[in-house]
């Protein structure tokens, strides 16, 4: 056992910090990298398989419908406004604002999940019809997994915020949830373009 000599006292340091100062933010970033890579792989596989066909979509397959997917992508982008607002509220330590923001976002997450069901149908192809269908379905499924997890987390978190167990550091947790939300909705834009729009151009 070594003899110790105190050189600093950290008892005055804060417990609740935001953004890259918090551990959870970094953990979230780690999962964003993992999931971002996974979605990137789906996109790469999409282009790789494209080379096996002379037309895209392959012959006898309809192009995807655009209405629902376009509503979805707009909804996802728009959902960032209340989420951003909630994020700001958390940094102000404004619990009421946070509650309101998360309530709205929970409702939006439910809507997005429902729309996702119709997006699968909008693909106009089955997963077992051809490799084109397989990779389109896989990309959508990969993103849906993340969407469902975020839906569950946001709803559970909202419930927590309305309970009487809130701790100061949950505010920082809310902000990390927002960070993930930006990723989840933002990454959908290029994926939407690939899965739904590219069959009109490629």
């Amino acid at each position, binding site marked *: *056992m*070594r*003899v*110790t*000599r*105190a*050189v*600093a*006292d*950290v*008892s*005055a*340091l*804060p*417990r609740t*910090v935001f953004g890259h*100062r*918090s*551990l959870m933010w*970094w*953990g979230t970033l*780690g999962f964003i*990298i*993992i999931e971002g*890579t*996974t979605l990137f*792989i*789906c996109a790469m*596989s999409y282009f*790789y*398989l494209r080379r*096996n066909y002379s037309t895209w979509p*392959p012959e006898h397959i309809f192009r995807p419908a655009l209405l629902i997917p376009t509503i979805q992508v707009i909804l996802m982008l728009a959902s960032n406004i209340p989420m951003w607002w909630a994020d700001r509220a958390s940094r102000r*330590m*404004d*619990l*009421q604002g946070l509650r309101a923001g998360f309530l709205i976002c929970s409702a939006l997450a439910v809507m997005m999940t429902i729309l996702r069901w119709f997006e699968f149908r909008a693909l106009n192809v089955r*997963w*077992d*019809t*051809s*490799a*084109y*269908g*397989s*990779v389109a*379905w*896989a990309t959508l499924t*990969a993103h849906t997994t993340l969407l*469902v997890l975020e839906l*569950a987390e946001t709803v*559970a978190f909202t419930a*927590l915020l309305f309970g*009487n*167990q*809130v*701790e*100061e*550091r949950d*505010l920082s947790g809310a902000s990390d949830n927002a960070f993930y939300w930006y990723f989840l909705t933002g990454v959908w834009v290029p994926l939407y373009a690939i899965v739904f729009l590219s069959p009109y151009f490629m």
Partner: protein
Amino acid sequence: MSAEAVPVQAAPSVPEEERVRHELEQTWRQPPGLLPWLKSVDHKSVGKRYIITAFIFFVLGGLEAATMRAQLARPENTVLGPDAYNQFFSMHGITMMFLFAVPMMTAIGLYLVPLMIGARNVAFPRLNAYGYWVYLFGGLFLYISFFLNTGPDTGWFSYVPLAGPEFTPGKRADVYAQAITFTEIAALVGSVELIVTIFKNRAPGMTLNRMPLFVWAMLVQAFMVLFAMPWVATATQFLAMDRLVATHFFNPAEGGDPLLWQHLFWFFGHPEVYIIFIPALGFVSSIVATFTRRQVFGYPAMVLSMVATGFLGFGLWVHHMFTTGVPQLGQSFFTGASMMIAIPSGIQIFCWIATIWAGRPRFTVPFLFVLGFVVLFIIGGFTGVMIASVAFDQQVHDTYFIVAHFHYVLIGGAVFPLFAAFYYWFPKLTGRMLSESLGRWNFWLFLLGVNLTFFPMHQLGFEGMPRRVYTYLEETGWGDLNLLATIGAVTIATSMLLFVINVVSSLRQGAPAGDDPWGGETLEWATSSPPRPYNFAYIPVVSGRSPLWASSAEMPVVTGLRTDVRDTLVTTVLDAEPDSKHRHPNPTIWPLLTAVATTILFVTLIFTPWGAVIGTPLLLLGLLGWGWPRGREKWEQQLVEGEA
């Protein structure tokens, strides 16, 4: 509220330190009994389990290898039939790569990194426990399937179309795909743990520039895992879907492409080699420094080489596919990249040699294993540069030359450093020394055995013996060299037995180690052996690369963390300045339950897509229990309500 650490100049008085230790002990300890064991979130308990489990898989993989060598000892032998042989080499490869090598490196990192950087635990203790359980269940799942005669039989990289639904009916390839998924999740979880712990929990003053080389190695490895593992995880999911719900990713008849599998697999598979190898470099650096009592020469060069290896490792995947008809220019590019990666490895070897040269090395067992590593790795490196040349590779592709090459690299580059690490850190983990004399026998027999086993395989490769054949004819003339290789395998097995005996007897009657038996330079040697559950009574403050070799006998520390909750210090990423306090979670059973739910999800998915419908809610339930608010502190809540 001030956000600064306030400087003070005082030694905590002795009774004060006693009180702190006593309270920390109460707060952090793991009570005896099974349930607390299952609930543990201590990085040392989890790390130790991880290490032991990975070692058991190493033994299983070794037994499979021994059985194969018994079969190949003479022509037309009958120990294993063709079907069993296929399962054996597949299980051996999968076990060694996915259940032994990567998890073992991660496990040692999870155990040592917090100690080396002066932290109390990893950043996300519950996630860490979850990662271990998922890994364990994945391994059990694979081996239970194997014992039910449903072990994978298409090799560790399971190429399609062979592994596709048409040519491998039954469930064997599904077992492969899903077992991989388990291990990937565990590896990814481990890498997030390591990265965040290293970035945010370093002792004050441990700037990036002062981080031990081992910690750098784990950081680079963890980033490689983060970017590499999703490729194989996605590939195996595609494979599983092709087999379960008739997608066509790899089915050429419907526009799919078998080469897609190869690209996805090797984009992971080549970095995989470095994922195994880079932590081993970290072991070597720690050991070289301690036993020459010098800082490793060329710290910046060492760090940059590791980082460079990390990047280059991703540029090489196509060299596994030279025989698939890659375009000419591509071939040249990947040949160039493959040769270039020899540069950073070379730099590191030179830095070690310079360190050893300048110091006065002590030839203890850990150091011997390091020397063994250098010798074997150089041989493996030579043959590696040879097969980076396309013309040469086309001749020896899929022969025993390749088997010889990658065993030299893997055993030399990873297993020898690993044994060095076992001997070096065993005293820290257990409080006892391993026997040096048994250790020397272990080392020399191992070195001899590896060369007897694998050197002849180069020649067998030139003579055209293909890999993955369960037997060969008398007339081929391969019998003698194969017998020699089998004798080598027996020698290796003997050396392993000695190691196990050494561990078991030293646990009982090894010499007590004390805190710092070797005179190490890094922080893990500043705490007791084995460390207390809270690691450090006070978080140390670091002012150089070798904190324990500093001239002052006193260790500077910070005070002011709470002792009645699991408090820890969070520091800034670059300069490790104290930034905030963070409360770690208490032990909990939910990571285990969530891992059980994950297992149910993956295993049922092998049989029916409805597995998702059964498994997902269970998984969400697990996560809900995990995050359920409990043990919360009202005073913090008041603060919020007051301000809101």
